[in-house]
């Protein structure tokens, strides 16, 4: 099993519903977030191109954050989901330094927190909160090893990219172009 997500940058309108849904679902303290939306405009006027991406932890296959954690608090759960066991985390910040996507933050309670792909929902057969709330339905979640899962179908006939693949982290969020 290998959970992954595909996000359609052409359908996303940058409404930030995924951000709010996550904050509510996961009780994220005010002023923090586990996912966020980036609007990136590139080119030279008047030929400009805008890409909108909902970003979060990439649940990397080769996760520097899991490797550098001195206590084993950062670890892989089923399907390659990377999570933090709060009562094992000492808050040393090593994993925050190690993430090329700055996907982690220091929770006011001391431990380090991040996107869990809504593991608690996934084990019940539900989709992550961000995916289920998206009004344009531009996010696809599922098992990459299942050829019929939403995510496998979504990336089958589309070009996609991952973020900073040169970091060698093997990110598992695919941005459809």
């Amino acid at each position, binding site marked *: 099993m290998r959970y992954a997500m595909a996000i359609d940058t052409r359908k996303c309108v940058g409404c930030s519903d995924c951000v709010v849904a996550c904050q509510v679902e996961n009780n994220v303290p005010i002023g923090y977030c586990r996912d966020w939306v*980036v*609007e990136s*405009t590139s080119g030279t006027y008047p030929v400009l191109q805008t890409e909108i991406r909902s970003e979060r932890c990439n649940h990397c296959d080769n996760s520097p954050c899991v490797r550098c954690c001195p206590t084993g608090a950062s670890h892989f759960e089923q399907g390659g989901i990377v999570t933090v066991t709060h009562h094992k985390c000492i808050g040393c910040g090593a994993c925050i330094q190690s993430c090329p*996507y700055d996907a982690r933050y220091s929770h006011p309670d001391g431990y380090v927190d991040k996107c869990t792909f809504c593991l608690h929902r996934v084990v019940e057969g539900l989709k992550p909160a961000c995916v289920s709330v998206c009004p344009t339905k531009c996010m696809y979640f599922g098992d990459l090893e299942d050829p019929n899962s939403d995510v496998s179908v979504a990336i089958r006939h589309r070009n996609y990219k991952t973020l900073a693949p040169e970091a060698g982290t093997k990110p598992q969020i695919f941005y459809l172009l």
Partner: protein
Amino acid sequence: MKEELFVSGRDIPNIDPFLNIWHWQIPMYLFLGGLAAGILFFASLFTIMGKEKEMPTTVKRATLLVPIALSLGLFFLFLDLKHKLWFWQLYTTIRLESPMSWGAWTLMVITPLSMVWSASYLKELWPAWDWKFKILDDFEKLVIKNRKGLAWAMIILAVILGIYTGILLSAFNARPLWNTSLLGPLFLVSGMSTGAATIMWMAKDKSERLLMSKIDLLLISIELFFIVHLFMGFLASNAVQIEAANLFLGGAFTVSFWGFVVVLGLIVPALLEILELRGYHIPVAIPAGLILFGGMMFRFIMVEAGQITRYLY
């Protein structure tokens, strides 16, 4: 031209606009670790060479600082932790892939060893010293008998500790400024140089001071060579590392790095030491103090600047 803006307003004070999770505690921890590693390295080296008599400050007196520096360093590491009550989790596993883990373990071994080392010289330094309990007296005799063996263990651990202070940073692929294998050797040499400076400062005997000052000159030259090498490597590397190097070549850290670390912390003390070796009288506190100051600034700047550098995507 590429323009990028956040629309959701990700508002994480420690991540935006740039990551800043490590403050003064980590550079102090790295500085004290390097200093302790340097002193221990020379103390063990001269013990192994059988030169305790010629180098009394190195072997006996300067090592008294080591347990203090290490304990203080561990305390600063503890201050850095955000989930302090769980700190003991560090010592429930050994994770070789994690520098933070094996560094913490190295400290856990080397700190008591350095305490034992210092304790075994207390009687020699203060003849009136009394251990009060017979078992402590017996233990002291045992340590004194096995000093050479202890020195071998300490010299290896000291090198590991010195390199670790650099690897702790260089293992982070996500921070381009740190992600170079040169950082381990560079921090080791810099730590040894601060150690040598401390011994030089404390030495009462002229010949010991002059020897340490010669060693220190060699270390400073190696350090300068590494620094040049570091920037050559960055400039010949990819976009993110070129950007990292530019922080020091015209960017925000140019003056503090080249002024405080390279000129005041390395070149000026080296010149003063050369003058001293030529027979001019230079108060030792000046070069030694400058080297310590430079070593500390170096770690502060590297930790601070490294957190600004990141991947671009």
